[in-house]
C-alpha cells in the first residue's frame, strides 16, 4: 500500500528545491526534434526557485505591445475547446482582446477535438487560411506539422527576440512535443498527466484509510474493487471502486492504454516509427486493464462529460488530470473539499513512469496571411499569459515557470501530485498513424473486456488491424 511519507514529500515540493530536484525524472534524453522516432521519458528540469521563475518571464507578456502590430483591420478565426469552462474563459478573453484592439475581429468557434481534426484534414490540404489558429490534441499534431501545414509562433508578436525565449517560458521538457528544430509550434492550453482522484467519504465508508490504503499499483487497486463495489437489491451496480472510460470517446482507450504500456517499460512506436501493439509490455498493460474491469455498461460518462461518473459519486476513484477534478466539482459542487489527489497507480512498485502526458495546443495555420498570423500569435500569447486564470477557471495546467511558484498555485489542491505525475510521464506518440493506433487499441480492449477474448490474440489482431489501416 501507499507509503504515507510520499504525500508529505509531494506537499513540500515547492518549498524545497533540493527535494524538487529528486522529482525530476532520471531517464534517457528525449530524442528531441524527431517526433516520429520513439522517445524515452522527458527529463523535466527541477522546478525553478521563485526568483529564477520571475526573471524568466519576458517583459510585456500578457500586456505586450509589439512594434509591428498591424494597424489595419484584421479578422482571425480560432477554434477553441468545447468543454463549458474553456468556452466561458475563451469568450471572456476574446472580448477583452477585441476591446483592447478594436481593429481586430476574432471569430471564436468552440470545436470538438475530433471534429476539429477532421475539418483540418480536409481544409489544410486545400491550403485554406481558416482557421487562423486551432486547438489540437497533442498526438494528432504531427499530421499537420509534419505535412508543413502549420507554422511556428512569431516571437516578435509576443515581444520576444527569439524562439528560445518563448520556449524558456516553460518548464524544460514539458513542451517538447511542440518543438521542431528549435521552433515552437504552438502554446499549450493544458498539459497533463493522469493522477488518481479519490472520493474521501466513499473511500472511508468502505472501512479504508487515507493515505495508507490508497493503491499504488494496479494490483492493489484490483484488490480494493470488491470492497468498494455496491449493488442494490436487484443486482444493479450502484457504486464502483474504479473504472476505465468506455463511452467517452476512442481517445480514452488509447491514451490510458499507452500510458500503461509506458509504465510496464515498453513503447508504442518502434525505431522506424511504426506501432507495435503486441509487445510483452502491451500484454502487461492489457492484464492490468482487465484486472480493473468492474461493470463497464453502468456509466453515464459521455464525450462532453467524461468525468460524470466520478462527479455523480458512482466511481469512488477515477483517473484524470487537474481539469478532471475541476470539471467534476463543477458538476457536483458538494465534492469540493472531499477529494484527494494521489499518484496514478503503476504497473509495479518502483516503476519510474507514471503514465502518459498529453496536451492541447493552439497551432498556427501556415496559409493565413502575414497579418493574420502575427495577430493570431499575439492573441495566443495574450490568451495564455495568465496561467492562474486558466487554473482557477478550468483546472487546466499550463507548465509555465512563472506560475508554479505563485502562492495561489501552491495552495491548489493536488497540484504537487499533478506536477509530479507530469514529471514522471512520457508524451503520447506523435505520428500521423495515431488514429489507426487508437482504433486498434480500442478494438483490442473491447474484445478482451466485452467478449472475454484471449489477451495475446486480441493484441495480435490489433497489430494486424493497424498494419491493414496504414498499408
Amino acid at each position, binding site marked *: 500500500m501507499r507509503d504515507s511519507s510520499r504525500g508529505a514529500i509531494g506537499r513540500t515540493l515547492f518549498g524545497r528545491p533540493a527535494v524538487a530536484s529528486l522529482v525530476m525524472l532520471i531517464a534517457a534524453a528525449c530524442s528531441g526534434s524527431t517526433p516520429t522516432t520513439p522517445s524515452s521519458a522527458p527529463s523535466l528540469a527541477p522546478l525553478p526557485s521563485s526568483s529564477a521563475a520571475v526573471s524568466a518571464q519576458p517583459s510585456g507578456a500578457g500586456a505586450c505591445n509589439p512594434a509591428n502590430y498591424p494597424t489595419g483591420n484584421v479578422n482571425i478565426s480560432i477554434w477553441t475547446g468545447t468543454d463549458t469552462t474553456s468556452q466561458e474563459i475563451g469568450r471572456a478573453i476574446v472580448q477583452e482582446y477585441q476591446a483592447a484592439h478594436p481593429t481586430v475581429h476574432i471569430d471564436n468557434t468552440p470545436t470538438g477535438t475530433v471534429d476539429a481534426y477532421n475539418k483540418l*484534414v480536409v481544409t489544410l490540404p486545400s491550403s485554406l487560411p481558416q482557421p487562423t489558429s486551432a486547438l489540437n490534441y497533442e498526438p494528432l499534431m504531427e499530421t499537420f506539422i509534419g505535412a508543413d501545414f502549420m507554422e511556428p509562433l512569431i516571437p516578435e508578436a509576443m515581444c520576444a527576440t527569439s524562439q528560445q525565449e518563448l520556449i524558456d517560458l516553460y518548464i524544460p521538457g514539458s513542451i517538447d512535443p511542440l518543438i521542431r528544430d528549435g521552433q515552437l509550434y504552438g502554446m499549450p492550453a493544458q498539459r497533463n498527466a493522469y493522477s488518481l482522484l479519490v472520493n474521501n467519504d466513499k473511500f472511508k465508508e468502505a472501512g479504508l484509510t487515507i493515505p495508507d490504503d490508497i493503491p499504488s499499483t494496479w494490483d492493489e487497486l484490483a484488490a480494493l474493487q470488491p470492497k468498494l463495489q455496491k449493488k442494490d437489491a436487484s443486482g444493479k451496480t450502484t457504486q464502483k471502486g474504479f473504472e476505465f472510460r468506455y463511452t467517452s470517446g476512442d481517445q480514452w482507450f488509447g491514451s490510458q492504454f499507452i500510458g500503461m504500456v509506458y509504465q510496464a517499460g515498453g513503447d508504442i512506436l518502434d525505431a522506424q516509427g511504426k506501432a507495435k501493439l503486441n509487445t510483452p509490455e502491451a500484454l502487461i498493460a492489457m492484464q492490468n486493464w482487465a484486472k480493473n474491469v468492474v461493470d463497464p455498461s453502468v456509466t453515464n460518462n459521455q464525450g462532453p462529460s467524461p468525468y460524470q461518473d466520478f462527479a455523480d459519486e458512482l466511481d469512488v476513484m477515477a483517473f484524470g488530470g487537474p481539469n478532471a477534478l475541476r470539471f467534476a466539482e463543477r458538476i457536483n459542487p458538494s465534492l469540493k473539499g472531499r477529494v484527494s489527489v494521489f499518484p496514478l497507480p503503476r504497473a509495479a512498485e518502483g516503476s519510474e513512469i507514471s503514465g502518459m502526458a498529453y496536451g492541447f495546443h493552439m497551432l498556427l495555420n501556415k496559409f493565413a496571411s502575414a497579418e493574420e498570423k502575427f495577430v493570431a500569435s499575439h492573441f495566443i500569447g495574450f490568451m495564455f499569459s495568465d496561467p492562474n486564470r486558466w487554473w482557477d477557471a478550468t483546472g487546466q495546467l499550463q507548465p509555465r515557470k512563472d506560475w508554479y511558484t505563485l502562492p495561489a498555485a501552491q495552495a491548489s489542491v493536488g497540484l504537487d501530485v499533478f506536477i509530479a505525475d507530469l514529471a514522471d510521464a512520457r508524451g503520447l506518440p506523435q505520428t500521423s498513424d495515431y488514429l*489507426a493506433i487508437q482504433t486498434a487499441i480500442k478494438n483490442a480492449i473491447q474484445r478482451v473486456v466485452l467478449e472475454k477474448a484471449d489477451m495475446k490474440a486480441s493484441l495480435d489482431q490489433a497489430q494486424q488491424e493497424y498494419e491493414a489501416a496504414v498499408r
Partner: protein
Amino acid sequence: MSGAAGVDPRARGQTIGERFRRSWLGPREPYWGLLLVVPILIFFVIFKFWPLLQAIRLSLYDADPIKKVETFLGARNFLDLAGDPLFLRSVVTTTAYVVGTVAPIMVLSLVLALLLHTGLRGTALFRTLIFLPVIVPIIIVPILWRFLLHPYGLVNEGLGLFGIAGPNWLSDKDVVVGALIIPTDWRFIPLYALIYLAGLQSIAEDYYDAAKVDGASAIQRFRWITLPLLKPTTVVVLIASVTFTAKSIVLPLVMTEGGPNNASTTLSLFIYQNGFAFFNLGYASAASVVLLLIVVTFTIATLRLFRTDD
C-alpha cells in the same frame, strides 16, 4: 400536301426560333423548360457527378490527402477489399442494418398511413406529432437514443415491466445493430408513412365503391385495390429507404463509433474511417464505389421487378 423539299409543312408560318425548337427539342418543349433545368443540372454536375468521377478515379490509386501523393494501383484496392475481413464484415453489418430497418418501414409505414387515412377525429394533430422525429436535427437522434438504450435506460426499464431482461444494447455485439435499427425506424417510419398517405389519397374512391357494390370485404379491397395501386409509392419507399439507410453514417459514428469491436461498423463508417482517419483515400474510394454498385444494382433490380409485374 408537302411543301418545298426538306420543309416540314407544319413549320409554315413559324419563326426561325420556333422551327429550331421543333427540330431540336421536339414539338412540345418550350425554351423555358430547358432554362429551368440547367441550374439544377449544373448543381448535379458540380456536387454529384464530378465528385463521383473523382471517387472512381481515386479508387484506382493509393492516395494520401495529407501528403498529396497518388500512386496508380489499378484494381489493387478492389482486390484488397475482397480479402479485407473488416470490409466484408462491414458489408454484412450494413446488410443486416438495411434489412432490419427497411422491413419494419415497409410494413409499419403503410399501417400508419392507413390509420391516418381513416380520417378519424384527431388524425391531423396526430399526423403533426408523429412527424416530430423526422424534423429533429439528426445529431439529436444518436445522443437521445444512447440514453434511452442505456442498460438502465427507459427502453430496458420498459422491457422490465413485461418481465423481459433488456440486453446491453451498445456493448453486446449480438444486439448492437438492433440499437441502430430502432432509432432509424423511429425517425423514418413517420416520413414514409406520409409518402404512403399521399399515395393512398391519390387512389380514387370509385374503385372502392365499385368493390363494395361487388361485395368485396375490407381485406379484399386492400389486397386487390390498395396494394396494386400503391405499387409506384411502394417502389419509391423501398428504394429511398434502402438507399438512405445503406449510406447512413451519423448513427454508427455517434452512437457506437462502430463498436464494440467493429460490430456496428457499417460500410459508410468503414469508408469514413479509412478515408479521413487512416488517410487511405484510394482504398476508401474503392469501398465507396462498391457501395454505389450495390445500391445501383438494387435500384435497377427493384425497378425491373415491379415493372415486370405490370
